[in-house]
């Protein structure tokens, strides 16, 4: 025991006392977990912004929305980065956010964007991804997926804990409306398991546990660009695919209003947008298709994009959740 005490106490000091960086102008950005890791878009964003702002951009990662709602007016965040479209109603209701001040009339989004507070910086659609070496005849439509034999095993995310899971719930609701419970009942025997988040599901899929995984239309781009693997494909359904975007917003109570505004101004610039496709593995919110990386341009695109605005999404969430729970229990 004694053996360990002294070095432990000596070395624990610097670890426990988070070294504060001496910088006058600090922009604090609350971001979702993966953003700031060296494999996410964070490092490029940080480097790019610090080159033009004469400031220190600091990411704070974690459960951003619960945290900001709990902190309220007292939050240290200047920017939140990585909110999801289906959750903006509750974020907006907090009154903590200020308008972004950007022109969103010519975005490269499949839906019109008129929100003056939450600004999309990337987007994609939910899709079921499969492996061509394991699935010979993938369902060609949502209807075919529902009618597929029960030995087709899919893995999805829990709509009570995951944004992509919630998007699936709304996707089914928009395609099947009042018949959503029947659709879930047909899907239920094919659902291998429901995971907390996207990553657990995707890991089960790549491990060969499931034939199809609820993911994004852009997921195959990672395998093509980073692994030279052409076998992962998103099944494109004629019924349409549900739109998901990640959003940024500035805090009304920020103590760095100029920096925060400068960051919001920077998000839609081509420099920022060009980093999105291959770091975030999603599509840029404002960049002409000609400027997308080849791998993203080559991806098959759904003909129809489905989307609920935030009020509809918020109103449908609880009833749709009840339907889902009843069908899958």
């Amino acid at each position, binding site marked *: 025991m004694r053996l360990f005490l002294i070095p432990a106490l000596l070395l624990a000091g610097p670890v426990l006392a988070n070294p504060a960086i001496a910088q006058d102008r600090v922009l604090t950005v609350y971001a979702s977990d993966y953003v700031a890791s060296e494999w996410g878009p964070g490092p490029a964003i940080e480097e790019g912004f610090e080159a033009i702002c004469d400031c220190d951009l600091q990411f704070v990662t974690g*459960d951003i929305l619960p945290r900001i*709602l709990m902190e309220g007016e007292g939050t240290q965040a200047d920017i939140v980065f990585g909110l999801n479209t289906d959750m903006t109603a509750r974020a907006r209701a907090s009154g903590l956010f200020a308008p972004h001040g950007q022109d969103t009339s010519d975005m490269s989004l499949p839906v019109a964007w008129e929100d003056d507070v939450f600004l999309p910086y990337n987007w994609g659609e939910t899709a079921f991804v499969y492996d061509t070496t394991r699935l010979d005849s993938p369902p060609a439509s949502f209807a075919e997926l529902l009618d597929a034999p029960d030995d087709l095993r899919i893995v999805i995310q829990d709509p009570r804990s995951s944004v992509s899971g919630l998007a699936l719930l709304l996707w089914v609701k928009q395609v099947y409306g009042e018949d959503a419970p029947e659709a879930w009942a047909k899907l239920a025997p094919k659902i291998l398991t429901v995971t907390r988040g996207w990553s657990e599901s995707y890991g089960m899929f790549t491990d060969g546990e499931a034939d199809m995984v609820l993911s994004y239309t852009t997921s195959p781009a990672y395998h093509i660009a980073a692994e030279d693997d052409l076998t992962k494909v998103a099944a494109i359904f004629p019924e349409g695919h549900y739109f998901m975007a990640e959003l940024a917003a500035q805090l009304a109570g920020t103590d760095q209003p100029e920096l925060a505004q400068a960051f919001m101004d920077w998000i839609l610039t081509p420099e920022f947008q060009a980093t999105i496709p291959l770091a975030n593995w999603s599509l840029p919110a404002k960049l002409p298709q000609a400027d997308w990386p080849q791998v993203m341009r080559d991806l098959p695109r759904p003909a129809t994009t489905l989307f609920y605005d935030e009020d509809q999404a918020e109103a449908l969430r609880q009833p749709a959740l009840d339907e889902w729970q009843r069908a899958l229990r």
Partner: protein
Amino acid sequence: MAARAALGAGHAVAAALAALTLGTLAAVAWGAGGLSALTGWDWRAVWFTCWQALLSATLSAALAVPVARALARRRFAGRGLLVTLLGAPFLLPVIVAIMGLIAVFGRNGALNGGLEAVGLPPVGIYGWQGVILAHVFFNLPLSVRLILQGWQAIPSERFRLAASLDIAPRDIFRHLERPMLRAVLPGVWLAVFLVCLTSFTVALALGGGPGATTVELAIYQAFRFDFDLGRAAALGLVQIALCVAALALARRIVVPAAFGAGMDAGPGVTGPPGWRRGADALVITGAAGFLLWPLVAVIATGLPRIPALPGDVWDAVWRSVWMAVVSALLSASACLALALAIARGAGRWVEGAGMLPLIASPLVLGTGLFILLRDVASPQQMALPVTVAINAAMALPFGLRALIPAAQALQADYGRLAAALDLRGWARLRYLVLPRLARPLGFGAGLAAALAMGDLGVITLFAGDQPTLPLKLYQLMNSYRMEDAAACAVLLMGISFALFWLFDRGGRLDA
């Protein structure tokens, strides 16, 4: 003087634990402006939680009996190593364990591969059976360890007397083993039941769907997606009520065993010959296969990729290791203070407070601390200290269980001598207490280090820019890097085991 100091320290730690577990719950309820009503789905979660904990605990305890008996009465090469290795799953970070279980029992796993090869239908791991399987995997080691201790506590003279009287194994069971099990099993069952009652990650991955929602999972969802602190606090309260009810029930059932003292000299017990020898071998092989195969599967997948892991994984490794070490030292110190006070006759509530972390929800704890501390310091700065403190508290009940009997024996055997010699304060600690209690202390510290290493639950609200290794693992998975994540899992597992081994071993060296 010394007595008063020991009691004071014990009371202080007990009060801190009570504040940490109950105070945070109150803070969450206060932050929400009161409790919210529970929905029908919440009550279903309560029902499922009780049901799966009941089944998991009963299965774990029942399966542990033959394994512990086989290990107690057989001697073979590598037995000591096997007993140590069989304890491993309890120390395993949940996410790593799930990877291993899926690799073996999953749809595409080794077991179904074997079943398919001989023409048998596949088994499914997803659903309530997966939750139970994982809980038995985690808790069978704990149960075996505790029951094995029970067997070893029967003086070997009793077994030798039985052998010289040529008593049949059935009668040995009736006169020696059954009374011991009667004394030990309720405690084992209760420990596993409580661990399963607050289970979270297991149900998330293997539960199969909303039917397998546990209370802790419902708390997570209330926080994370509904931002309904009132419901989270209400659920936390229900969880505590369930645990307290289980504790009260167990208290009525537990009876002490009375075997009298033995010299504990001479060779160990030898088991009955004949078919029972084969059966014991089968039981030991089966348990070893069940508990170790998933570990081997994880290692086989991830080990080759470790050298290719990106640099900042190693930063996370060091951060996590120091966090775990500090957590372990904190936990062991708190344990020591509590155990010494209990040995000197501190009130029952001190012992009760020591068990409180077992029944508290880590999510409620983390959120409560967040609410309490947010005006004092920035959450990023608090992230690591809070994680250290919570993990130290969470591991404390296990260490305390091991330490209390030792501390009581110390007080009974040396208390008067020490008083006569006027040995007190630092000198008493240095020359009497620490050397005599090093073993259980080392065990408790090792357990705390391993649990802290694998923890993910409490950090997400506080997380700053200094990710721990489990968080790093998730980041890798979230960036499509599943192979690197598998390598990270091996690293996490290896370090957890190494830390436990070092502390446990350290405790035995000093003694």
